[in-house]
C-alpha cells in the first residue's frame, strides 16, 4: 500500500517541486525565537543574540559544562580584594583586521558602563573602573571586594567589539566581532546571514555559511524543522515534542534551564508566616503529576530553587513529598480547620502554562481543605500588589542566573532581608549571615557548598514552593553534528558545529 508521504513524494517529483522549501545546499539554517530588539545594544539581551550567533566573545566564558573558562583572556588574577587583572590572548584580531589590545578591550567595557541604563551584570554600581595597565592586561576594579568579577566578564553584555563598532552611540556588529562567525547581513527582525571567520583564533570553523531566521511563533519554528526549512528549531513547545520525536531524521536536545517555576508565598502574611502552613501547602502538591500533565513530561519536578545538575544544587535532593494527609495534619497543628482558609492565587498570562497550573494547584489545595481564588492578569497588573505584599500566593517563572553564572545575586535579591526582588518578603538573619560570609570566598567549590545548604534551607522552610525546573527543547536535523544547548543560552553557533 502506498503511504501518504510516498504518494506526495511521487506527486511532487512529477511536478518537479519537491524540496522547494527546504534549507538550501550547505547553508546551515536555524530558526531562533528572539530577534535583536535594541539595535544590538550590548547592555541588553541583544548581546546574547550576538554571542549565540558565534560573533560576540567576552574575556571569559561559561562553557557547556557550566564552568568558567578562558576566552579572549587566557588568565586572570585577583591582584587586590577589589581588583582583577585579565591577561589577553595573544594574536587575536577583530574581524575587521584590527588587533585586540588591552586598550580596545578596556574601551569596549567602558562603553557598556557609560550607557544610560547599564546591564545589571556590569554596571557602575558593581564596577568602579576598567583600564588597560599594559599592552595585554586589563584591570577591572570594583567598589568593594568581589570574587565574582571573572564571572561577570563572561556575561554577554561584556562582549568585546572592534573600536569601529561604536559609532554615534550605536553598535555595529557587522565585521567587528572576534568570534568564529562573521555577520554579513542583518535583515531587521527577520534574520541574519553569517559566514565562517577563516582567521578565527580558536581554529578551524566547520560551517561555511549560516542563516538565522527569527520566528516568533514557537509552533512555526517546530514546523520549520519538520519541513526541512531549518536545520534547528530553537525553543520548540512541549506540545510538539512527541510529534518531533516521532519524525524521522529529527532529534531533540533538552536541557534544564536555570529557571524555576515557583509558587511564591507571602511569608509576612498570617497564617502563611507559620512554616507549618507553608509546609502543608508544599505537601499538598503532586509535583511529579504536575510535571507529567501540565508540562507533558518535558520538565522535572523541582527539588528546590536549583535544578539537580547545577553545581550548587543540594546533592541527592528530591522534590517535596506529596502527602495530603500529613498536610492536613500540619494544618490542624497550625489551628486551621478544613475549609476555613481561603487564599488568593495570582498567575500571569505571559507564561502560558500558568493558567492550567493555577487550576491544578487550586484543585490540590482544595483536597486538603484550603480554598484558592485564582486571579489571572498580565504581570504588570499583578506586580504592584505582589511588591507591596498584598497577595497570598503567586506563580513566578524566575531565573537564578540572569546576571552572572553564580546564584549569590539571586539568593541575595530574592531571599535576603533587604533583597531588591524579595517578593516572598522572607527575612532570616541566619540566612543573610551565611550568605554574607560566603561572599568573599574565592574558591567556587566552597561557595557552592554554602549555596546548596541555603537552597535546602529554603526548601525545608517552605519559603516558596518550587514547582518545576523549566526545560529548553531544541529540535534539530539528524544531519547536524555537535549540536548542544548552552546552559545559559549564550552560545549556539560554535566552531565544532557541522552539517553532514
Amino acid at each position, binding site marked *: 500500500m502506498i503511504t501518504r508521504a510516498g504518494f506526495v513524494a511521487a506527486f511532487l517529483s512529477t511536478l518537479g517541486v519537491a524540496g522547494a522549501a527546504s534549507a538550501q545546499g550547505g547553508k546551515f539554517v536555524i530558526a531562533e525565537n528572539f530577534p535583536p530588539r*535594541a539595535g544590538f545594544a550590548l547592555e541588553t539581551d541583544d548581546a546574547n543574540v550576538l554571542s549565540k550567533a558565534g560573533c560576540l566573545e567576552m574575556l571569559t566564558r561559561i562553557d557547556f559544562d557550566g564552568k568558567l573558562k578562558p576566552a579572549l583572556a587566557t588568565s586572570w588574577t585577583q591582584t587586590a580584594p577589589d581588583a582583577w587583572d585579565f591577561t589577553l590572548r595573544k594574536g587575536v584580531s577583530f574581524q575587521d583586521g584590527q588587533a585586540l589590545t588591552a586598550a580596545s578591550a578596556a574601551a569596549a567595557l567602558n562603553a557598556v558602563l557609560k550607557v544610560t541604563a547599564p546591564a545589571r551584570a556590569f554596571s557602575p554600581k558593581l564596577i568602579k573602573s576598567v583600564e588597560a595597565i599594559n599592552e595585554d592586561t586589563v584591570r577591572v576594579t570594583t567598589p568593594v571586594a568581589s570574587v565574582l568579577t571573572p564571572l561577570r566578564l563572561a556575561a554577554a553584555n561584556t562582549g568585546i567589539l572592534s573600536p569601529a563598532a561604536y559609532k554615534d552611540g550605536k553598535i555595529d556588529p557587522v565585521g567587528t566581532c572576534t568570534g568564529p562567525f562573521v555577520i554579513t547581513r542583518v535583515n531587521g527582525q527577520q534574520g541574519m546571514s553569517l559566514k565562517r571567520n577563516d582567521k578565527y583564533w580558536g581554529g578551524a570553523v566547520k560551517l561555511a555559511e549560516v542563516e538565522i531566521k527569527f520566528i516568533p511563533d514557537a509552533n512555526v519554528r517546530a514546523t520549520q524543522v519538520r519541513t526541512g526549512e531549518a536545520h534547528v528549531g530553537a525553543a520548540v513547545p512541549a506540545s510538539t515534542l512527541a510529534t518531533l520525536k516521532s519524525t524521522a531524521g529529527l532529534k531533540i536536545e533538552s536541557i534544564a534551564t536555570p529557571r524555576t517555576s515557583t509558587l511564591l508565598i507571602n511569608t509576612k502574611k498570617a497564617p502563611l508566616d507559620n512554616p507549618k502552613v507553608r509546609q502543608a501547602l508544599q505537601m499538598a502538591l503532586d509535583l511529579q503529576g504536575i510535571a507529567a500533565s501540565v508540562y507533558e513530561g518535558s520538565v522535572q519536578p523541582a527539588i528546590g530553587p536549583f535544578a539537580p545538575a547545577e553545581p550548587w544544587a543540594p546533592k541527592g535532593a528530591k522534590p517535596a513529598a506529596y502527602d495530603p494527609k500529613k498536610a492536613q495534619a500540619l494544618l490542624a497543628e497550625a489551628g486551621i480547620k478544613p475549609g476555613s482558609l481561603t487564599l488568593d492565587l495570582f498567575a500571569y498570562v505571559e507564561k502560558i502554562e500558568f493558567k492550567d497550573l493555577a487550576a491544578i494547584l487550586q484543585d490540590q489545595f482544595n483536597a486538603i481543605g484550603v480554598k484558592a481564588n485564582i486571579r489571572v492578569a498580565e504581570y504588570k497588573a499583578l506586580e504592584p500588589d505582589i511588591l507591596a505584599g498584598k497577595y497570598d500566593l503567586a506563580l513566578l517563572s524566575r531565573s537564578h542566573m540572569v546576571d552572572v553564572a553564580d546564584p549569590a545575586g539571586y539568593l541575595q535579591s530574592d531571599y535576603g532581608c533587604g533583597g531588591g526582588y524579595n517578593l516572598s518578603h522572607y527575612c532570616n538573619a541566619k540566612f543573610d549571615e551565611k550568605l554574607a560570609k560566603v561572599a568573599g570566598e574565592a574558591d567556587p567549590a566552597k561557595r557552592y557548598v554554602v549555596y546548596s545548604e541555603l537552597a535546602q534551607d529554603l526548601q525545608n522552610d517552605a519559603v516558596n514552593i518550587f514547582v518545576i525546573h523549566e526545560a529548553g527543547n531544541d529540535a534539530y536535523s539528524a544531519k547536524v553534528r555537535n549540536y548542544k544547548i548552552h546552559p545559559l543560552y549564550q552560545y549556539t553557533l560554535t566552531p565544532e558545529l557541522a552539517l553532514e
Partner: protein
Amino acid sequence: MWLFVTRRLAVLLLTLLVVSVFAFLIPYLSDGDPAVLVLRSRVADFQVDQAAVEALRQQLGLDRSLLAQYLSWLNAALHGDFGYSYTSRAPVIDQIGRALLVSITLAMSALGIAIVIAVPLGTAAATRPGGPIDTAATFVTQTLVAIPEYWMAPMGILVFALYLGWLPSAGWDGMSSLVLPAMVLALRPLAYFTRVTRAAMMDVLQAPYITAARSRGLSMTQTVLRHGVRNGAIPVVTLFALWLAGLLGGSVVVEVIFAIPGMGRLIYEAVINKDIPVLQASFVAIVALSVLINTLADILYAVLNPMVRMAHAHA
C-alpha cells in the same frame, strides 16, 4: 468634482489632527511605567534596576509633562520626524516605511486573490439564484467567514508547507513566501466580496436597462459582461477599500505566525516592547492611510457612478 475632492482632503487633515492626539495618548492609557516596561523588554526579566529606570525615563523624555511631550512630538511629526524607536534606536519613519511596503504588498495580493475569485463567483451565483453555483457559493462563503485566521494559518502551513512541501512555512523571502499568507488573508474578504457581488448583481440584473439590453437580442453572458459587471462591482470597490485599510495594520495574526515584517508585526513587537514612538507613528500612519484610501475609494466611486457626482454637484 474638484470641490468634492477638496472637501474630502480637508476632512482628511482634520481627522489626522484629531488622530494625532489619540495616537499620542494611547500608549499612556495602559497600566505600567513605560520606562520600566521598556527596560524589561530589553533584558527579558521582571527584575529591573530602579536607577536604570530613572536614567532611561530622563533619556526618553518621559519625565516631562504630557502636554510638553505632545507638542514637541507634534512639531517633529509635522516635519516628518517621528523620532527614534525606544528599542531598536532606528528612525521610526524608516521602520514604518519598510513595514508598510510589506503590508501593502501582502494586503493587495490577498485582496487581488479575493476579487479575482469573488466577482465571477458572485456574478455566476446571481445569474441563477438558488442554483447549484449559488448554493455552493453561499455554503463556501458562510464557512470562510466563520474560520478565524489563527486556525487557518497553521492549517495552511501544515498542508502546503509540511505535507505538500510546496511553500515555505514562514518568512518573507520572495514570491513563494507571499502565497500562503496572502491565501489565508484572502479567505474572509473573498467571502464578503462574493456575497456583496451576488447581492449587487441581483439588483443590477433586475434593472430596466438590463431588460432593454436583453430585448435588443444580447445573450445573458454578453449582457452581464457589458452592462452588469461594471455596475455590480461598485459596492465591491467600497468594500475593497475598507478591507485594504483594515489589512494594513490588522493582519497581526498572519504576520506574526508567518514571521512577516509588516505593520501588524511591527505593532505587535512595539506593544510587547512598549515602544511608544513606533506605536504612535504606526497608529497615525494606519489611520491616515485608511482615511486616504477611503477618500480615494469615494472619488473612484464617484467616477464609476455618475449619480454620486450629480449629488455633489447639486450640494
